[in-house]
C-alpha cells in the first residue's frame, strides 16, 4: 500500500485506531440489527474496517516518509479520490445507460427485485452525483486548497477518513436502494444511519478545510475556495434539515422523516434544488475557477464580477426550491418567490459563465488545440445554457408545460453531462499527468476522442429529451376543437419510444468516453515515475503536526 507509506508511524497508529473503531461500529450495527439491510451494512463496515486494520498493522514498521514531506503538498489523497471518481463514473453512468435502455425495452428487466427500474434509478442519481461528483469535488478541493493557500493539508489522516468515509456512505446508499431500503426523498434517499455517518464525515471535511486555510500563505482566500466552502457549509445545513427522521426502531433501516405533507415537500425541494446549487454548481464553480486559469494560463477576467456572482449565487439560490412545486398544493405565495428569485438568479449564473469564457480571451488558440481546455470551455457554455433553461423553466406557465415531463430530464443532463461531467473531465486531464509527474496523459489522442464522444453524446441526449418532454407536455394538455382532451395517457407513453432509444444511444456514447478516460488515467498512473515532487512553489514552514 503506497498510501500508507506516506503516513508517519504515529499517524499510522491513529489510522489503525480509526479502522478498528469502524469495525467495532459495524459490529454493533450488525448485532443490533441482526438481519436486514442494516445488518448487511454493518458487516460491510466490519469488512472495510478489518481490511484497513490489517493493511495498516502490516505496514506499521515500513520506512517513514522523509522529514521534508512537510514542505511538499500532500497529493496522495487526491490521487486516490480521482481513482474513486472514475470508478463511480463508470458505475453511475453505466446504470444510467441501463435504466435509459429499460424505458425503451422494459421486457429486458430481469425478474430480480434489485434490477428493477425504480431501485436502479436512485443508484444512478446517487452514483453520479455523490459517487462521481462528490469524489471529484473532494479530490480536487484538496489539490486546489493546498495550491491556492501554499500550505500542506493540516493533517494527513483526516483526508483519508473523509474519502473512505464518504465512499462508505455512497456504498451504503447504493447497495441499500438495491435491497429496497430508501427514504424516497430524491437525492437524499439514503437511510438514517448513513445520513448520520455522512454528517460525521462532513464535519471532518469542514474542519480540515478551515484548518488548512488558517495555515495559508496568501493573505487573500482565492475565489475557488469561497465556492468550495459554500459547498461544504450549505450542503451540511441542507442535509441535516432534510434528513431528520425517526427510525422505526434502532435495529432497522426503516425510518419516518419528521416532516410531512406540504412542509416536507418544501423542505425536500429546498434541499433538492440546493443539492443542485451547492453540490452540482458551487463546488464545480470552485473547480472551474482553479483549473480554467491554470490550463489557459490566463488571469480571471474580473475579480469584481466574481464577487457579485458568488454572493448572488449563495443568496438567491436558496430561495428557488419552490419552483419544483409550481401549481401543486404548496401555497401560491411560495411559488411566486421561487419563480422570481429563479429569474434574478440568472444574472449571477451568467456572470459566472461569462467570467469564465472571457477569461479565455487571449487563449482561444489553446481552446482550439487542447481538448482538455475545450472540455472546460464547453462546460462553461453548458453551464450558461442550463442555467438559462433553468430560469426559464422556473416561470410558472412554462413549468406548467415542462413539469413531470422529460424536458426536466433534458435540463438535468444538460447541466450534469454538459457542465458537471465536462468540468470534471477537464480537471482530471489537467491533474492526472501532474500527479503522475508526466507532461501528458498516457494516450493524449484519446482525450480528443473522449471530447467528441462526450459532446456528441450530450447533444443527442439533451436534444432528444427536449423533444420528448415538449411533445409529452403538449400532448397531455391538447384539446380538440370540441373541448375534449385529444390524447390518452398511453398514447403519450408510446410517443416517447424513439426519444428513449436516442437517449440510450447518446448516453452510451457518453459512457464510452468516460470509460476511455478511466483507462487513460489508469495507464497514466501506471507509468508514473516514483512519487513526483509536487511542490511547484516553496511552502512556508509548517507547524509541527
Amino acid at each position, binding site marked *: 500500500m503506497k498510501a500508507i507509506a506516506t503516513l508517519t508511524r504515529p499517524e499510522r497508529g491513529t489510522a489503525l485506531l480509526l479502522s478498528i473503531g469502524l469495525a467495532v461500529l459495524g459490529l454493533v450495527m450488525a448485532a443490533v440489527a441482526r438481519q436486514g439491510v442494516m445488518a448487511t451494512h454493518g458487516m460491510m463496515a466490519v469488512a472495510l474496517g478489518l481490511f484497513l486494520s490489517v493493511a495498516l498493522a502490516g505496514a506499521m514498521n515500513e520506512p517513514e516518509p522523509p522529514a521534508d514531506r512537510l514542505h511538499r503538498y500532500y497529493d496522495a489523497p487526491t490521487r486516490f479520490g480521482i481513482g474513486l471518481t472514475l470508478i463511480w463514473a463508470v458505475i453511475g453512468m453505466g446504470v444510467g445507460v441501463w435504466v435509459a435502455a429499460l424505458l*425503451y425495452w422494459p421486457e429486458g428487466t430481469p425478474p430480480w427485485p434489485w434490477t428493477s427500474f425504480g431501485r436502479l434509478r436512485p443508484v444512478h442519481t446517487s452514483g453520479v452525483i455523490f459517487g462521481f461528483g462528490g469524489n471529484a469535488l473532494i479530490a480536487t478541493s484538496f489539490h486546489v486548497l493546498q495550491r491556492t493557500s501554499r500550505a500542506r493539508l493540516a493533517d494527513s489522516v483526516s483526508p483519508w477518513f473523509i474519502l473512505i468515509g464518504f465512499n462508505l456512505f455512497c456504498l451504503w446508499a447504493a447497495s441499500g436502494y438495491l435491497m429496497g431500503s430508501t*427514504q424516497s426523498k430524491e437525492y437524499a434517499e439514503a437511510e438514517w444511519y448513513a445520513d448520520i455517518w455522512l454528517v460525521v464525515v462532513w464535519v471532518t471535511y469542514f474542519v480540515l478545510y478551515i484548518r488548512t486555510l488558517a495555515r495559508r500563505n496568501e493573505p487573500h482566500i482565492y475565489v475557488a475556495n469561497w465556492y468550495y466552502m459554500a459547498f461544504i457549509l450549505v450542503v451540511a445545513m441542507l442535509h441535516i434539515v432534510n434528513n431528520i427522521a425517526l427510525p422505526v426502531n434502532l435495529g432497522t433501516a426503516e425510518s419516518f422523516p419528521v416532516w*410531512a*405533507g*406540504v412542509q416536507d415537500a418544501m423542505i425536500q425541494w429546498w434541499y433538492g434544488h440546493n443539492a443542485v446549487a451547492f453540490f452540482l454548481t458551487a463546488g464545480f464553480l470552485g473547480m472551474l475557477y482553479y483549473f480554467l486559469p491554470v490550463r489557459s494560463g490566463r488571469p480571471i477576467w474580473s475579480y469584481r464580477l466574481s464577487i457579485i456572482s458568488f454572493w448572488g449565487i449563495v443568496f438567491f439560490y436558496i430561495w428557488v426550491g419552490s419552483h419544483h412545486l409550481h401549481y401543486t398544493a404548496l*401555497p401560491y405565495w411560495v411559488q411566486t418567490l*421561487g419563480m422570481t428569485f429563479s429569474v434574478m438568479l440568472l444574472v449571477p449564473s451568467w456572470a459566472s459563465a461569462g467570467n469564465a469564457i472571457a477569461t479565455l480571451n487571449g487563449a482561444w488558440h489553446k481552446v482550439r488545440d487542447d481538448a482538455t481546455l475545450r472540455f472546460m470551455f464547453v462546460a462553461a457554455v453548458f453551464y450558461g445554457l442550463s442555467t438559462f433553461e433553468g430560469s426559464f423553466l422556473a416561470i410558472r406557465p412554462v413549468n406548467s408545460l415542462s413539469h413531470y415531463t422529460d424536458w426536466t430530464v433534458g435540463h438535468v443532463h444538460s447541466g450534469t453531462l454538459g457542465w458537471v461531467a465536462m468540468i470534471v473531465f477537464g480537471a482530471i486531464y489537467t491533474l492526472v499527468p501532474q500527479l503522475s509527474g508526466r507532461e501528458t496523459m498516457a494516450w493524449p489522442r484519446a482525450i480528443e476522442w473522449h471530447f467528441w464522444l462526450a459532446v456528441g453524446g450530450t447533444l443527442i441526449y439533451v436534444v432528444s429529451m427536449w423533444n420528448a418532454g415538449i411533445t409529452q407536455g403538449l400532448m*397531455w394538455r391538447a384539446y380538440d376543437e370540441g373541448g375534449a*382532451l385529444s390524447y390518452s395517457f398511453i398514447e403519450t407513453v408510446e410517443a416517447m419510444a424513439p426519444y428513449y432509444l436516442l437517449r440510450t444511444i447518446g448516453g452510451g456514447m457518453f459512457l464510452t468516453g468516460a470509460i476511455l478516460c478511466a483507462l487513460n488515467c489508469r495507464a497514466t498512473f501506471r507509468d508514473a515515475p516514483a512519487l513526483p515532487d509536487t511542490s511547484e512553489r516553496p511552502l512556508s514552514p509548517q507547524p509541527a503536526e
Partner: protein
Amino acid sequence: MLKLHYNLEKVSMGLVVAIIVAASIGGIVEIAPLFRIDETVQLPEDLRPNTPLELAGREIFIREGCYACHSQMVRSLGDELDRYGPYSLAAESAYDHPMLWGSKRTGPDLARLGEKYSDDWHVAHLIDPRAVVPASIMPAYPWLMRPLDTGLLRDGLATLARLGVPYDEAQIAAAPADALAQSRPDSTEAEGFIERWGEEIALRDFDGDPARLTEMDALVAYLQSLGRLTDAPYRLMAAEEGAQ
C-alpha cells in the same frame, strides 16, 4: 463595499459566517411560515390516516421506487382536472411521512387512483403490466406475491403517532393483527378491525389468494386508498361547480 469584501476575503471564519447568513435567509422566509399560516393545511374532519395494511403497502411503494415514475399530485391546471380529477389538497398528504408528490410522470398520476380499477386488475398489472396494457413500459413486479412481513408495523404506527399522526393505542397495539384482518373479511378478527378503523374502509382479500397475506395485498390496499382518505377535494370541486 469592495473594500469591505477585500477585507472579508482575508478572514476565513468571516467568510464562513457570511455564507451561512446569506444562505439561511431564503429558507427561513419560505419554510417557517408554512408551519404557522393556518390556511396552508386545512385538515378536513373526515381525513383518516392509512391502516396498517395500507401503510405496509406504502412502504412497498417506496421500496420499489414507484414514485420515480408516478406522481401523486394533481396540479391546479384545467387539463389535469379533466384528466385526473379534483386538484390535490395539502391536507391529503398531511399524515404522509414523507410526502410522495413525485417529480416525474413516466406513468400517469396516481393521486385519484383509489377504486378506479379492481383489485384483480392491479394484481394482473403488477405481475405483468404488458399482459393487460400491451404498450406499457412499466416494469413487472412478480415477486410481490411473497408473504408480507408485519413485524415492524406496531413500531411503525407508534413512530408515526409520535410524529403527530392520529393513531390511538388500540390501533397501534393491534397493528400486525389488523393488517391480516383487513384482508380477511370473513374472519373473526375482522370485527376488531371494524371496531378500530370504522366500517367505511375496504375490507377484502386484495390479491386473490385468501389463504395468504402477501406484499401484493398490502400494495393493492394502498393503491385502492389513494385519494380516498378524505372526500374534501370532491366536496370542494362540487362547491366550485355549484358556485358557477
